[in-house]
């Protein structure tokens, strides 16, 4: 397998190399830098921004764009506060006010918080883990463009006065076609779903990067806490976003095609939307909090000049949070009329989630006790976090108590609570993170003074705005009202909130100005200015596009970063330089981080932009209700995806690479362990499975909980339908078997063709079966069954395309002992998944329709 001589020591039997790698001989740092910079640099000029796939460029761009959306959302909040400053607030009319508060919430959640944390993860993780880029650079770029285009669609709608207006959680029936005519709700459903492509993309590549690209020897159990936090976050995103995507697609289909998923009169249920939304919506809170907490766990030990207290306990707390956060979504629904004992269960779960949070907070304070805290600017923001977040957490516990929730729910008390949690638990830590990592981003040191002033103005403005808002809520002021002429007792409170709200805005403007001043006027920063122990600082400032001239070995990890900058820059670590003129990273095993193979990453390309643009065309056509043309517009998307995957063909030098004396590993095409792409497919299938589970949940909910009209007698009662279902399942199982044979090397190219035929047969039978099903517009359960059939159909189409792709790879000679296995493992995973979902779907149909 290896072409290099003398593999010494020999590779381990599981296809990895030992983690204790010998050092490379030192080289001249400048020469290495030039070699790497040439290979890893973005293209020049504006075009370079279009084609960039670098995690540094895109991570920063994610964060900068998110900050712009934060400013826009902030301006909207100022309009809200201006309206509420007086009882009669004749400033905005109700329609516009409704659009503005809906957009404020939607922007802050979907266009600020989530992209910001994705950006931080994308920018920081490779540096922290000791690698050169994220696992899927083109996917990073695709995610960014989807985020930008989706956000622009929503902003454009606001400019034209057709923005969403039903509140950021879009409760149906208020958001259905009857009660919300026009495209406002469609803008939300399609725009947010478009943006969520970037969330799924980020979750997939963050998961894979953390598990497979840590520096050799960086054990999972010893990796920096930030990586643990992001691993928890990405796991939650993979499972938490699909219910939202499922709900949005179903609601959009209801609005567009009158499939009554949520329509009471036809067996649907508006509460199904609430369940799907909050199944996303509550994990979402922790999705936002965990990366911020990760930044805290990184920065506090550095500011206190001591290692973190309770590493293991914090990891356990993260895992506990990830688990618990999926068990408490119902606490957003305490007032919908659920039996008290069920409420008690979710109340207990909601309260329990405070425990892992408390473990972290006290571990941080214990770290401060153990060390000697220094009051640098990041530490100020961390103190702001403590004050604000502790109070927000405590009001959260109050809201988890059912009787109190019945009073406080949907009042300004909740508005106050969620701002304490989100600004305390996310914005303050992000400001700490920004001030902490600015030297690495810009290479500049801070200009003293303004940042501290900004902090105090923000702290004052925030608590002045939101502290008394608790009282406003307890005095009975509901959320989302625009006037309160009969309640002068709320006026002074609201006026105070409004005034301090403007103070808060000024504070954020000062913060932004401080960053701009630092970037433009700051003096050159020293390397590793904080004397940090993590690898993100073991590089020059500002960070070069390739991060590390050589990848850090075990001996370079865990000590002071400044001690290893020189060594890494001189190529003493693994995989020094870019002697083969291509972007190489080291892929390691998930647990012990033993070297598996070298992955060759794609270079600069405009393909992500073009693909995102073609998806945007589809979204816009859907918005314009041109559904037939929209279906056709999926064709270019499919072609571009094919071109995308063709870009992974084995080209160039496929010889094994010697990453250090005595350690030689294959390139990824010829890897014996799963490649990054294969790990990525597995992560994607986790999200896909969650999507399928959401549909199953919906069907079960409608069948068991909803007390609507019973479905009309099912038409599918003849045995030919059962036979058809069995035929689909059998064809897909056969296809999965063919792919499996291929992965084991027990079949030739015929198996690809066989797999393609199996999928085509399944597709034809499915198309016939759909004509036999009941009209999906008749009843919600019929609609959901049709949606499940559509889900399976879509997967069969993709599976067939993947089979065809491998057949094409055989034809091109890209699947051979010399060039590797191509897309076979990815197809096999997908095909097996498709077969399983089809079998489950068939079983559900049989059970529900009573097919003989």
């Amino acid at each position, binding site marked *: 397998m290896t072409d290099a001589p003398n593999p010494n020591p020999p590779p381990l039997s599981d296809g990895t190399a030992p983690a204790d790698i010998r050092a490379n001989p030192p080289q001249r740092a400048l020469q290495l830098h030039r070699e790497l910079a040439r290979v890893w640099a973005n293209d020049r000029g504006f075009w370079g921004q279009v084609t960039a796939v670098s995690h540094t460029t895109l991570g920063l761009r994610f964060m900068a764009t998110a900050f712009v959306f934060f400013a826009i959302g902030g301006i909207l909040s100022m309009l809200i506060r201006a309206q509420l400053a007086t009882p009669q607030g004749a400033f905005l009319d109700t329609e516009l006010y409704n659009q503005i508060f809906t957009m404020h919430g939607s922007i802050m959640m979907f266009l600020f918080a989530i992209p910001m944390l994705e950006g931080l993860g994308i920018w920081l993780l490779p540096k922290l883990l000791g690698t050169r880029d994220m696992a899927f650079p083109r996917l990073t770029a695709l995610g960014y463009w989807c985020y930008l285009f989706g956000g622009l669609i929503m902003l454009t709608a606001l400019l034209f006065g057709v923005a969403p207006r039903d509140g950021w959680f879009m409760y149906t029936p208020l958001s259905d076609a009857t009660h919300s005519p026009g495209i406002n709700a469609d803008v939300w459903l399609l725009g947010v779903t478009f943006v969520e492509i970037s969330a799924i993309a980020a979750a997939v590549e963050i998961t894979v990067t953390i598990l497979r690209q840590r520096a050799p020897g960086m054990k999972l159990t010893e990796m920096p806490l930030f990586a643990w936090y992001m691993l928890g976050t990405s796991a939650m995103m993979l499972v938490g976003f699909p219910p939202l995507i499922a709900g949005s697609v179903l609601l959009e289909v209801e609005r567009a095609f009158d499939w009554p998923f949520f329509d009471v009169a036809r067996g649907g249920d508006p509460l199904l939307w609430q369940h799907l939304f909050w199944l996303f919506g509550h994990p979402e809170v922790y999705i936002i909090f965990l990366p911020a907490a990760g930044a805290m766990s990184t920065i506090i030990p550095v500011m206190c000049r001591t290692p973190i207290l309770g590493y293991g306990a914090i990891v356990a707390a993260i895992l506990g949070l990830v688990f618990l956060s999926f068990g408490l979504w119902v606490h957003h629904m305490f007032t919908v009329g659920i039996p008290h004992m069920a409420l008690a269960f979710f109340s207990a779960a909601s309260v329990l989630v405070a425990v892992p949070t408390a473990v972290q907070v006290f571990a941080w304070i214990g770290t401060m006790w153990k060390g000697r805290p220094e009051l640098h600017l990041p530490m100020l923001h961390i103190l702001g976090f403590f004050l604000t977040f502790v109070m927000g957490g405590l009001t959260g516990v109050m809201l988890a108590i059912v009787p109190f929730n019945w009073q406080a729910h949907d009042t300004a008390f909740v508005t106050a609570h969620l701002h304490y949690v989100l600004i305390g638990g996310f914005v303050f830590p992000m400001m700490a993170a920004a001030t902490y990592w600015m030297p690495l981003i810009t290479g500049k040191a801070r200009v003293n003074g303004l940042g501290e002033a900004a902090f105090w103005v923000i702290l004052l403005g925030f608590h002045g705005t939101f502290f008394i808002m608790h009282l406003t809520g307890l005095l009975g002021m509901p959320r989302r009202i625009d006037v309160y002429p009969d309640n002068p*007792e709320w006026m002074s409170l609201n006026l105070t909130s409004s005034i301090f709200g403007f103070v808060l805005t000024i504070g954020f403007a000062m913060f932004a100005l401080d960053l701009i001043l630092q970037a433009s006027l700051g003096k050159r920063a020293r390397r590793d200015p904080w004397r940090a122990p993590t690898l993100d600082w073991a590089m020059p400032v500002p960070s070069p596009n390739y991060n590390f001239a050589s990848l850090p070995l075990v001996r370079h990890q865990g000590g002071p970063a400044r001690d290893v900058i020189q060594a890494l820059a001189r190529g003493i670590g693994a995989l020094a330089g870019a002697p083969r003129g291509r972007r190489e990273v080291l892929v390691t095993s998930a647990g012990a981080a033993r070297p598996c193979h070298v992955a060759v990453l794609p270079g600069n390309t405009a393909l992500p932009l073009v693909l995102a643009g073609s998806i945007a065309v589809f979204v816009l056509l859907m918005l314009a209700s041109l559904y037939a043309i929209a279906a056709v517009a999926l064709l270019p998307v499919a072609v571009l995806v094919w071109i995308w995957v063709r870009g992974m063909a084995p080209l160039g030098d496929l010889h094994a690479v010697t990453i250090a004396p005595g350690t030689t590993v294959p390139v990824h095409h010829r890897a014996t362990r799963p490649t990054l792409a294969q790990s990525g497919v597995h992560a994607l299938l986790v999200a896909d499975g969650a999507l399928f589970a959401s549909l199953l949940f919906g069907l079960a909910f409608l069948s068991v909980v909803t007390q609507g009209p019973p479905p009309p007698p099912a038409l599918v009662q003849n045995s030919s339908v059962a036979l058809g279902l069995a035929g689909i399942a059998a064809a897909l199982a056969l296809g999965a078997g063919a792919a499996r044979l291929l992965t084991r090397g027990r079949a030739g190219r015929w198996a690809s063709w066989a797999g393609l035929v199996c999928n085509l047969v399944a597709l034809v039978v499915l198309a016939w079966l759909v004509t036999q099903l009941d009209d999906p517009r008749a009843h919600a359960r019929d609609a959901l069954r049709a949606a499940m059939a559509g889900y399976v159909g879509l997967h069969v189409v993709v599976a067939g395309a993947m089979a065809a792709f491998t057949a094409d790879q055989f034809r091109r000679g890209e699947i051979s002992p010399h060039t590797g296995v191509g897309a076979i493992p990815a197809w096999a995973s997908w095909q097996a998944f498709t077969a399983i979902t089809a079998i489950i779907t068939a079983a559900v149909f049989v059970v529900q329709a009573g097919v003989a």
Partner: protein
Amino acid sequence: MTVRYAIWAAPVALVGCSGPLSTLDPGGHIARDIAWLWWGMFAGAGLITVFVLVLLAVAFGRPRETTQKRWVFGLGLWFSLAVLSMVLAAGLWVGERILPRDDGAVTVRAHAFQWGWEFAHDGAGGQLVEGEGTLHIPAGQPVDILITSQDVIHSFWVPRLGGKIDAIPGRVNRLRVQADSAGRFDGLCAEFCGLGHAAMRFEVIAHDDWPPADPDATQDRP
């Protein structure tokens, strides 16, 4: 009406916690139980906040020998579990006290629509007495309200008499409220329901006699 409210409300606004929609100015035992729950949790939350701030302030002294056990298990796990168990138990206890139960309580109906409320109760002769905008209930006893919706989701809330519950199309929700003495109480729709949401108010009149002989001859506010 606005003027009357303004004159009435201006002085009590200074008191801080009263007001026609204040949960902290309960008009019956259900709202009072929840208000006490709030004051208890508020005091506890205040103490914990001060405690954390003191811990933070002390952290700025000399470095100390300290153990993970104390912080992670002592404070993080056991302290928080103890506090949370107490709060949870109090919440369950109050919840069980104020829930609707089958004890023959007077039942009235509230039907929400965009944008207003229809109410109905049984009159003296057993006939249904219907009306818009004003809900009549007996004073001094628990009343169950059956809540339904015509179109979108609304939420029935009379802050001084008890918690809120959503009015959901296709469902009948039951909420228990109680006014200790006769009088007028304000209610509103708490769930955002579109353009007329802010104005979707109603009034509750609690009567000493039930069914009220003359619904319009009502008592003043207590």
